């Protein structure tokens, strides 16, 4: 299914009632089975945009819609949170089953379904553990399994690995790519990390600093499946440098206030 973001603007009201624009006329689209990274400096409204796509926030103007066949009991999107947002009172298995439970699936069916994604994300053997017994990397695997289990048309990921240490992050990126190769989910992936965006995505949508607007859309001409070795490839370096030059000016402005 295709996601279309059409001239979305979002204005927040701060405590004094002043209007703070967060997003300004953002238009973008994610094709079916495409992996799109939404990249921008911190505070550019990229998470806001993802929440709007998820239906957790209302845009001030503009619209988001999905194009494709409607499948009953299949949600348009599901969410992977930066802070994992696992239910601490549920075991790994119960966390993965959450969305299926809400969809009204019978207990036996959802246990079997959840089991598939527990295995896909490398959580086999940890089903009975509680989140606090897991490392950060393992917790986010649960987050990903929970989101994949509901078979969403589009997977929305909000800086899913930014709370992890650098080594774990690298490994999780590779694993997510491997999962993507197998499932070919349409993914909208928010990040502020240029290397991550270029390494993983088919296309990088670069947002400006607040209020976020689209600065550029950069297609990444790297073959699939992606490997670590590609991080030295000319296409990788070129794309990274191009995005950095766009972001750098923005970051300077932000620093000088």
């Amino acid at each position: 299914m295709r996601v279309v973001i059409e001239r979305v603007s979002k204005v927040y009201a701060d405590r004094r009632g002043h209007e703070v624009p967060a997003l300004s006329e953002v238009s973008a689209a994610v094709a079916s089975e495409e992996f799109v990274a939404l990249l921008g400096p911190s505070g550019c409204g990229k998470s806001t945009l993802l929440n709007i796509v998820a239906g957790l926030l209302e845009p001030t103007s503009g619209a988001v819609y999905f194009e494709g066949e409607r499948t009953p009991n299949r949600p348009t999107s599901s969410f992977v949170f930066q802070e994992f947002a696992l239910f601490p009172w549920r075991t790994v298995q119960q966390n993965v089953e959450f969305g299926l439970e809400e969809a009204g699936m019978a207990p036996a069916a959802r246990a079997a379904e959840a089991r598939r994604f527990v295995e896909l994300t490398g959580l086999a053997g940890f089903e009975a553990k509680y989140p606090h017994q897991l490392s950060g990397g393992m917790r986010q695997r649960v987050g990903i399994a929970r989101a994949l289990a509901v078979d969403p048309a589009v997977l929305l990921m909000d800086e899913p690995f930014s709370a992890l240490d650098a080594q774990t992050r690298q490994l999780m990126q590779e694993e997510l790519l491997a999962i993507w190769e197998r499932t070919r989910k349409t993914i909208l992936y928010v990040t502020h990390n240029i290397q991550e965006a270029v390494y993983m995505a088919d296309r990088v949508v670069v947002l400006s600093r607040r209020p976020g607007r689209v600065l550029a859309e950069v297609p990444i001409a790297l073959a699939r499946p992606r490997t670590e070795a590609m991080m030295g490839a000319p296409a990788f370096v070129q794309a990274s440098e191009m995005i950095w030059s766009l972001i750098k000016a923005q970051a300077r402005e932000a620093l000088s206030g």
Partner: protein
Amino acid sequence: MVRIPVENRARFLAHREYRVLRVGALGGLVLAWEIVARLGWVPVLFLPSPVGVVGEGWDMIVSGELQMHLAASLERLALGFVVGGGFGVIVGVAVGFFSIAEAIGEPLIAATFPVPKIALLPLLILWLGIGEPSKVAVIALGVFFPMAINTYTGVRQADPLLVRAAVSFGARRWSVIRKVILPSALPMIFAGLRLGAGTALLLLVAAEMIAVESGIGFLVLHAGNIMATTKLMVGIVVLSLLGILSHWGLNRLERVAIPWRA
């Protein structure tokens, strides 16, 4: 050149257990009490010896008197706890979650909470009669407030991120309450139970001092009236045991009910 060794400057901050001292403090108190009683420094009528209290307690168990009083008290406690606790949780969730319930409930609770519940006992007796209902009601009231207020606080403290996560996976209002809000509030609910247990014991004794023929409160008051000090002491010991037991039991229950807490 000199070597300057690094010393552990934080040593005095370390917390030690001193297990022997813990047991010794308690044992020493009882021992001192026994010695004072044996030496006859204080007449037995005013301070019976620990050994005497244990003996009297045993006699009361053999005759069945103690069990009868204990059963009567436990029944009042249990009923009061179930009624007060149940309503407390329901009201706490409603006031914490629904804006309308909060607008109605919060000022009402804030206005009625500071009233000492013992002061309501005569009123409850007027309304409900002198029998069991007024006694259960005063205990229920005493349990209701800490439970309602703690549940409310627990509900308000539920992590908005988890609520959002649940909603993003299709959870509707009741699902959110049942699967996110209530488990989030559970630790606070248990804290409320603990507070309620203390209040309940206090109110139980007060209620049993008026127009009853059974219960530990009655036992204490009656024994005092006929100067049966040893019996009175048995009653006090049983009450303190009840307090200790409820605390211990709630701790055990909490560990079973909240297994996700490390």
